[in-house]
């Protein structure tokens, strides 16, 4: 169960009218290394992980949902006042034809989201290594997105999200270290 707090994890401000950027940001919404894939991956894997690391994975999965909201807010702000003509000019004509200004889970190239973007292997080491890789891939996506905008407010939000990927990667690496420890061994006091 979750308790919803009606505010964003970090404030999202967009100061430049740039609907084209929405088309690129959607990569982090419905792309392979995006926030939806991350949240679903972790919140699904947690069931079959050893007890010592379930909490870490559950908490990170929950935070990914908060990031998903931030990306959605950015995309929404960038497109909500665009005309059909402006959507077309921004490269969003195909999106507009199918969805109007509604958000949809697809990547920047328009490929719809699929559960095959992530795995649940059941082997805790295999799953946590995938999680670490996913965080590094998301970190790089944020870097490329930052490279494509000169809006300082949008950059600020993206910098925050990139930093969270760094922290999550570190936490998953710590989870691996926990699992590597010998826990069955008798403790000598």
């Amino acid at each position, binding site marked *: 169960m979750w308790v919803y707090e009606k505010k964003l994890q970090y404030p999202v401000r967009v100061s430049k009218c740039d609907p084209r950027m929405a088309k690129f940001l959607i990569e982090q919404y419905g792309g392979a290394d995006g926030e939806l894939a991350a949240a679903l991956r972790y919140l699904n894997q947690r069931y079959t992980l050893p*007890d010592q690391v379930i909490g870490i994975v559950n908490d990170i999965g929950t935070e990914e949902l908060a990031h998903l909201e931030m990306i959605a807010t950015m995309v929404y702000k960038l497109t909500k006042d665009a005309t059909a003509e402006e959507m077309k000019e921004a490269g969003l004509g195909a999106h507009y034809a199918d969805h109007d200004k509604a958000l949809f889970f697809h990547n920047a190239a328009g490929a719809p989201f699929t559960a095959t973007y992530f795995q649940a292997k059941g*082997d*805790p*080491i295999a799953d946590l290594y995938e999680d670490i890789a996913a965080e590094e891939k998301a970190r790089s996506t944020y870097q490329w997105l930052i490279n494509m905008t000169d809006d300082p407010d949008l950059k600020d939000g993206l910098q925050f999200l990139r930093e969270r990927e760094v922290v999550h990667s570190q936490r998953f690496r710590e989870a691996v270290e926990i*699992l590597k420890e010998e826990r*069955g061994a*008798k403790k000598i006091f």
Partner: protein
Amino acid sequence: MFTYRKAYRPYISPWDPCPPLLVKTYETPPQLYMGFQPMGLPQFNSREALRRGTLWPALFAPYTNPYKDAKGGVCDDGGTPMDG
């Protein structure tokens, strides 16, 4: 004792529908611990190495079925089951 298989006692609910697996295990194979492989590690002879899939005993970690003794709560790593 160092092992390539770790065991833990998962939480068991009084409402679980099936008889519980008291001890669960997962694999922690040697490549997790080695870092950069040191030079000059002992080697199998070539016939053994071809059969085992590796030149080095330090990387040889065959997999066995952990469920063989699992129902009794005994783990397969030579250690004793953990205390609650």
